């Protein structure tokens, strides 16, 4: 993959940098690229937790693969364990049983260089500017000041917020805060990005804009993205595959391949194929 020089001439190259090398843009599905290794592999995963002395089965017999560079959503009713599953992929929670391999290795503790996490609440530190918030993971790692600043700037540029580097979180809108949170998750250039209902707290319009933003970022960086959401339309629109979980205990009902062409556009949401997929997933969840 060619690394573009630092002084960009075009809008696309502007987003390329040593930290985020521009991937060749693909007009269609990622089939054309040589398939890299499996980013995420889950086998025989069960999870039971203790609630007031009673054992509750949260997840049952979960197993799937996510090839590198794909965008996968996980949907399911409330309480189906999809957020817990994401926490396990992030190393924030250990499953009762089963195997998780992230980028080929287990993940017993958080590893931000391997897995970036974006939560529903942007959770930016209100006492730090956007720039400093994005620098934070690098700061924890002891990266020197100059490198931190540079890499954080690039991450902010990637999400389109370079002009707001010095703004404090309370000066930013919900969508902007979430974008800073995404920049922060990406600043160490992890191959995998996990997102737990990141747009749920945003109004519908912002959500749609952010969805397209996310696809643009994904297109540039070709990370593996696992996206948990309640929104079926959102899941279908964004993803290559949609993993459908049942209500508690969460088990996989189906993995739906979204065969819509890329780049996606909002008109696709009005097409029959889209509605069919949405309805079939909805029926699965409902029953």
């Amino acid at each position: 993959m060619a690394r573009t020089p630092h002084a960009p001439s075009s809008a696309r190259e502007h987003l390329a940098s040593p930290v985020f090398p521009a991937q060749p843009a693909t007009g269609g599905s990622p089939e054309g690229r040589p398939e890299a290794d499996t980013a995420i592999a889950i086998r025989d995963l069960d999870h039971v937790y203790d609630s007031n002395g009673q054992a509750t089965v949260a997840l049952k017999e979960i197993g799937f693969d996510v090839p590198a560079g794909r965008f996968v959503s996980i949907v399911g009713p409330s309480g189906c364990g999809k957020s817990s599953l994401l926490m396990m992929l992030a190393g924030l929670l250990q499953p009762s049983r089963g195997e998780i391999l992230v980028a080929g290795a287990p993940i017993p503790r958080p590893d931000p260089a391997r897995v970036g996490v974006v939560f529903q609440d942007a959770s930016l530190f209100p006492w730090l500017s956007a720039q400093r918030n994005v620098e934070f993971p690098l700061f924890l790692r002891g990266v020197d000041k100059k490198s931190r600043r540079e890499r954080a700037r690039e991450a902010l540029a990637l999400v389109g917020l370079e002009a707001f580097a010095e703004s404090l979180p309370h000066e930013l809108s919900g969508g902007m805060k979430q974008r800073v949170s995404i920049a922060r998750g990406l600043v160490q250039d992890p191959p995998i990005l996990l997102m737990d209902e990141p747009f749920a707290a945003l109004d519908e319009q912002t959500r749609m804009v952010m969805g397209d933003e996310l696809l643009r970022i994904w297109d540039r960086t070709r990370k593996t993205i696992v996206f948990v959401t309640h929104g079926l339309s959102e899941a279908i629109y964004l993803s290559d595959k949609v993993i459908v979980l049942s209500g508690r205990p969460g088990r996989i009902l189906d993995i739906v391949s979204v065969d819509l062409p890329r780049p996606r556009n909002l008109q696709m949401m009005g097409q029959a194929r889209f509605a069919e997929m949405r309805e079939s997933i909805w029926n699965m969840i409902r029953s």
Partner: protein
Amino acid sequence: MSRVRALSAYLAVAAALLLLWEAAPSAGWVDPRLLPPASAVLATLWEMMMTAVFWRHVGQTLAETATAFAIAVPLGVVVGILVAESKFASATFKPLIFFVFSIPKSIFLPVFILVLGIAFWQKVAFGVFSTIFIVIMTTFAAVESVREDQLRVARSFDASARQKMLYVYIPAMTPILLEAVRLAMIFNFTGILLAEMYASRAGIGNVIGVWGQGFQLPELLAMVIFVSVLAILFNETVRYVEAKCEHWRN
């Protein structure tokens, strides 16, 4: 209302009150033995500030106050954090601390005098006693204000316990801890002045008590003005620092 207008209005009211204080005793509306005119009080204050005796008393009180403050605040914050962070300690000690806080501390003063005498360290001890509970309780609130989701973010970046303490807890707690500092000084200063007024050989509280009994109103009121200015200065300094944090604290 614009800031300039608000400030002008505020100064106008202050000036009016000052004029009233000058006029009322001079005109005989108030007994000038009980409330000397402002000019007399301010003149007395000016003269007192020229004497070494004045500064000896002030120095004594300030030394006691500063010492008690330096003990009570760090100790209170540490105890507050330790108790708040431990489920067991929280369940056991929080109710006790709340109960003791609601007892007026002044009733313990005779006990302090019996046990510790009336010298410097007794007053410091009483100051600490008066202050530490509010510091501990405010620290509880500060710990609670650290948001769980921010800690989760730190965890997701694999922050160590030390890093979480330094880079999440302390910045998050700072606004409320500043509040604790402000409240602590109020309780502290009050406690020490009370101890001095009750039984002490020196100090601001002591001389205020002597002047009160001797009907020396100009001196007494002059000292009241002086103490008020000190208290306001301290308060406003802390509030200024707090205001710096205020802009990001919702």
